[in-house]
């Protein structure tokens, strides 16, 4: 096929992100300046964000058999770009005090974003894999970025080794699937599967392997083991990136794969995913009870949240797409806010991030507004009404009820009740009387910095989405999936 202008317009966001990486690289080669690198990255990401508008004009359009630029992918591209922007601003605050080279961070981040963009637009196993690897490989470097800290280095290595293994499984699964079906495109697979010609064991095996690989990337129990360790060790902005961008991209892709190629011959895959979902909810919430480190708590809670979200995947009809979109938006905003506060509290210090709950004891008495932000985020994670998290949870609930997935709904209820417990623990800690030794603290002028502003904006956003979610819902309804003809 030939590439026409409209194809290029559709790809513009992706190309702009890639160009940003190159430009930042050249700029760094010319002169190292942290502010300039960050600014260039922000400009590039914003340009890509703007490029979504012309892209939406030409969408839906299929760009090569690999990529499908439809409203669905554009919606998630937007989400990814916004999240990446937030991570960039956080990273700027964080890296200011890092006694090392800082500029490479933005290139790695850009590469990873490009991978995520490919992933959400992919409609072919090839682009799936390329996107996934392009997204993951820079993350190895990012998680180990503060490599003078043992924990950071360790998290980088852990993530790399395990992720490589997961990719191997994914590839193996894809190969088996290909060997059986002779096609790699989602639609082709879907046709073959629905024709019933592929109910063979090799398909089961292949899909099973893929579940292992993708489950790892989504940190679904029992493939979640790396999550808390990596979240804890990686620099806070990277943890934020891992928890938002990478999850959004993989899940959006998975949703597309599942909608186009539903392996629903006898529903065995749904059963497996439902089991994994309930397991994630239970394991994530239970293990979070024990944690004394805020970053780990969010890590475990992300496991649980992905479990909730899988409900939509299992249902994969009716409200499911809308629910996924709304849930991911609210979740991303919340997690970014939470990690934002952690970044702000950690950034003025050298050494490991301020993750321990102990560091946050009595934060209210020192930084009331920052504490309020963190409180809002915790409430939202717990899914309390008036916060964004509630809208997401409500959608998941509706989907579960609509499709009569009782076990999953039960899991959500149980998980939420457990979840309240540790989110409350965090909140209560914030308001306790301050510790004897002064804990860690954000800089005095945190609210005047970009990172601080971003966190405040997120808090307001979380509240607005909680109180008046209609615009978000409208947007999510527009983000319909384009089924290729």
């Amino acid at each position, binding site marked *: 096929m030939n590439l026409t202008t409209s194809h290029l317009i559709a790809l513009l966001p992706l190309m702009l992100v890639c160009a940003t990486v190159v430009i930042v690289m050249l700029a760094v080669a010319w002169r190292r300046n942290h502010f300039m690198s960050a600014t260039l990255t922000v400009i590039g990401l914003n340009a890509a964000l703007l490029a979504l508008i012309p892209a939406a004009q030409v969408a839906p359009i299929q760009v090569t058999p690999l990529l499908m630029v439809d409203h669905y992918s554009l919606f998630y591209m937007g989400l990814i770009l916004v999240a990446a922007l937030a991570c960039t601003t956080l990273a700027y605050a964080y890296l200011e005090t890092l006694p090392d080279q800082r500029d490479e961070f933005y290139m790695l981040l850009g590469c990873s974003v490009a991978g995520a963009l490919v992933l959400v637009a992919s409609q072919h196993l090839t682009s799936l894999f390329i996107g996934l690897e392009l997204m993951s490989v820079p993350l190895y470097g990012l998680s180990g970025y503060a490599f003078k800290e043992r924990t950071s280095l360790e998290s980088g290595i852990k993530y790399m080794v395990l992720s490589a293994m997961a990719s191997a*499984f994914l590839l193996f699964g894809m190969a088996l699937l290909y060997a059986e079906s002779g096609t790699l495109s989602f639609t082709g697979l879907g046709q073959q599967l629905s024709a019933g010609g592929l109910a063979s064991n*090799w398909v089961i095996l292949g899909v099973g392997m893929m579940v292992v690989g993708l489950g790892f990337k989504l940190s679904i129990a029992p493939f979640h083991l790396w999550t808390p360790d990596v979240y804890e060790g990686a620099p806070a902005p990277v943890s934020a990136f891992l928890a938002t961008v990478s999850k959004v991209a993989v899940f959006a892709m998975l949703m597309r794969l599942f909608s186009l190629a539903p392996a629903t011959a006898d529903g065995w895959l749904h059963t497996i995913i439902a089991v994994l979902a309930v397991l994630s909810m239970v394991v994530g919430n239970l*293990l979070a009870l024990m944690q004394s480190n805020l970053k780990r708590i969010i890590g475990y809670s992300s496991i649980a949240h992905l479990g909730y979200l899988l409900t939509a995947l299992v249902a994969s009809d009716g409200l499911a797409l809308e629910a996924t979109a709304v849930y991911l938006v609210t979740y991303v905003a919340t997690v970014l806010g939470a990690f934002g506060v952690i970044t702000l509290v950690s950034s003025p210090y050298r050494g490991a991030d301020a993750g321990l709950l102990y560091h946050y004891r009595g934060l209210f008495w020192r930084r009331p507004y920052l504490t309020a932000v963190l409180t809002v985020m915790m409430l939202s994670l717990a899914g309390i*009404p008036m916060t964004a998290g509630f809208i997401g949870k*409500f959608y998941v609930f509706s989907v579960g009820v609509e499709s009569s997935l*009782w076990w999953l709904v039960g899991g959500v209820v149980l998980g*939420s009740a457990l979840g*309240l417990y540790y989110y*409350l623990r965090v909140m209560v800690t914030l308001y306790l*009387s301050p510790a004897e030794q002064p804990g860690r603290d954000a800089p005095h002028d945190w609210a005047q910095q970009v990172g601080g502003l971003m966190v405040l904006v997120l808090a307001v956003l979380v509240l607005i989405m909680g109180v008046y979610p209609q615009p978000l819902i409208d947007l999510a309804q527009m983000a319909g999936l384009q089924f290729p003809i």
Partner: protein
Amino acid sequence: MTLLLIVLLPLVGSLVPIASARSGRTTCAWLTAILPAIALGIAAWYTPAVFGGQLPQVSLDWVPALGLDIAFRLDGLSLLFVYLVLGIGLLIILYARYYLSEKDSMSRFYAYLMLFMTAMLGIVTADNLLLMWFFWELTSLSSFLLIGYWSHLSEARKGARMALTVTGAGGLCLLAGILLMGHVVGSYSLTTVLEHRELIQQSSLYQPILLLFLLGAFTKSAQFPFQFWLPHAMAAPTPVSAYLHSATMVKAGVFLLARMYPVLSGTDEWFYIVTLTGLATLLYGAFFALIKQDLKGVLAFSTISHLGLITLLFGFNSKLAAVAGVFHIINHATFKASLFMAAGIVDHECGTRDIRKLNGLWRYMPYTTVLAAVASASMAGVPLLNGFLSKEMFLAQSLEAQMLGGLSWMIPALATLGSVLSVAYSLRFIHDVFFNGEPRDLPKTPHEPPRYMRLPIEILILLCIMVGILPGIMVEPILRAATAAVVPGQAPEIHLALWHGFNLPLMMSAIALSAGVLVYLLRNHIYRFHRQFRAVNARQSFEFSVQRVVRSAQWGLDRFENGSLQRYMFLLLLSAVIVAAFGLMDVPSMAGLKSLQPLDPVVVTGAGILCLAGLGTVMLHRRRLLSLLFLSVVGMFVSLTFARFSAPDLALTQLAVEVVTIILLMLALFFLPQKTPKESSGRRVSRDILLSMIFGGVIASLNYAVLTRPLQSISTYFIENSVPGGGGHNIVNVILVDFRGFDTLGEITVLGIAGIAIYKLLNRLRLFMPSSDMEGRPWSPDRYPVILSSVSQTLLPLALLVSVFIFLRGHNLPGGGFIAGLVAAVVIILVYMSRGVEWTQRRMSFNYQPIAVTGVAIAALTGLGSWVFNKPFLTSSFGHFDIPLIGDIELATAMMFDLGVYLTVVGSTLMILANLGKVTTPHRPSKEKQ
């Protein structure tokens, strides 16, 4: 729109105390009270209309996509609750002004209280189920804040958390129920839902809906078996208990029962679940109220008991019983709120709530004693008080219940028993606390509370008496209006009167009163009996179960998440193996349709050596040099395997790559630490062996199964098109330089970039050259062995010739640019190794960077060249030329491209490898610094 104000005013009111925090405590209280008072006025203004059968409604869009509207209604039931919530709320504001000490933040308390009031009003007036649920959750949250108001007390924090966990989880159940109901009815509007009784009850989802709604109601109203949170919520300040646990929060559950009564009731499921739960709660609460030693604990359990009674009444499926239930909601709210406030006064003035210490308080606070006594009498159901009326109705209704068949007599019997206990604990509350001897070691000397602290109780007691004596005037209109909302269709005849003549209920009441006194007199026997059992502390058991959960979580953490990468790998592999093994188990037969190739001894021997070498690599991994040697054997045999199965090209490539890799590893090995620490215990090693055997087994069987199945190969296409399309007989080479030329171009670019990057990275690196191996033996001082250097020098021209030969014939016979490049690189490296970097560079004084770059450039230019002939990028062409003496020679543009590949490979490889030799320095880095 004024209807909205009823909810909005208290919401705004929650800001008032914060704003007026500095203006003094009394002012703050007064200002706070203004807005709810206005709201009460609005409700009063609506009253005639509601009594007249109108239904004021208001509706605004909020989130239409979810079916969530801001819709409110004010029917009789709502109005009744609005009165309760606002009226008692105002009294509590007054009471709390005197109850809270100077240290407590008044504004915070009032803000929370107003927030709670808003939530409660929202529940009772919402006309949209989702909106109602929304406020429902808000009550859980604001009650969390109120119960945990004294946040320095761990007791309060734990109690608040428990309350929130239980009611929060119940709330989610309710949400599921609401969603289901919306699913069935197609709307969340309460008005619509209430009209679809038949639809809901005939739906197959009726049972889950009912269960979920009841779970929500029962957790909120502390019904058995969820009653345990309520006693622990008593850690709250007493005004909170008086408000939340008498009139509002716990009433939300029974309100829900009343609200949903028109659509959910009337079925057997409803009867059995609601009645039995109510009965169990009634008796359970009553019994424990009798034996608790904590003043508020007694009230908490009596609240549980009375809530059970109300639930029981709603369960009876009779219209009159529902009326009685609504009536008892009012009565219980009035007398229980006053009792809590009285208990608060006692606590406030005496500094303790332990009944064993409190005795004979009437001497110190006679006025309070009278008030408390009247309230208790109402709770016990003494005639002339409001409690008596509803209890009569309750007893009468219990006689009507027939659904347990032959066992129906048990309901009135148990109801009477509940009343007996109720009388007993009411009596105990009065007699033990206010009479019965002298107080013992009280922290404070008690005296009468401030005038205004008693005022709320006086008002409530007055109501109790008035309702008790003149029920027809006082409550009948509102009861009638509320009943109209609860009981659909023909309203039952309500006739409230003090005297119904001598009948069975009256006798039961009399029995209850006299037996209650008797039970109280015999209470010591009951205590003794009860002491035989281990005290069950709900919080302890709750905490215990929490601890157990936590312990199991800890166990899981220790087991699975110990931070060890090996462990994670192990688990990940294990789960993958399980998936694979399950898949394989389903495969009927391992072997597919394809027949196996015959085994020949060469292959068997080769495979055997391959396995052994692999084993050797792993087993000797701590002695790296040996391990590396084994690895090279593995590589060698892999290449041979390719050769054996007719892939000479691949074999050649593999061989060259093997050599380069091993050289690279050798060079790197030199700088690595000499010793590998022993990291694995025997157990772990055996575990790993086991796992790898399983994993290998599964993967091997998988491969076997896949390979024995027929496959469609894409190779036919290439075989057919290689000569006509690419002009070469070596298909692999044709694919590389022609069919997939674009890929190759990308690859060599990457290779070139990688080479340059490594070159730059190594440029400044200096590593200490170790002088001895791991066992302390010095490395040979003879750096440049003579034999090797002479051999390498001799080999150099020969090998370069071979490389050119391989390159030239590559298009048709095994060979090609890539292999040729590697061969050239290997031999040059050999020279480097044998002669040293300096010696070699003096003689081969050229840079490798330009070579690599030139290679990429040539390849790219070849591709661009086709544009000159108006062909797409990288179109190749070939022709046959007849050159004299040499004969027919085929030349293809692909050859140029291949030259590019050749140069890039040579340049990059040498950039990487030749520079590794330069990084050595004989000085230790640490010494260098000094």
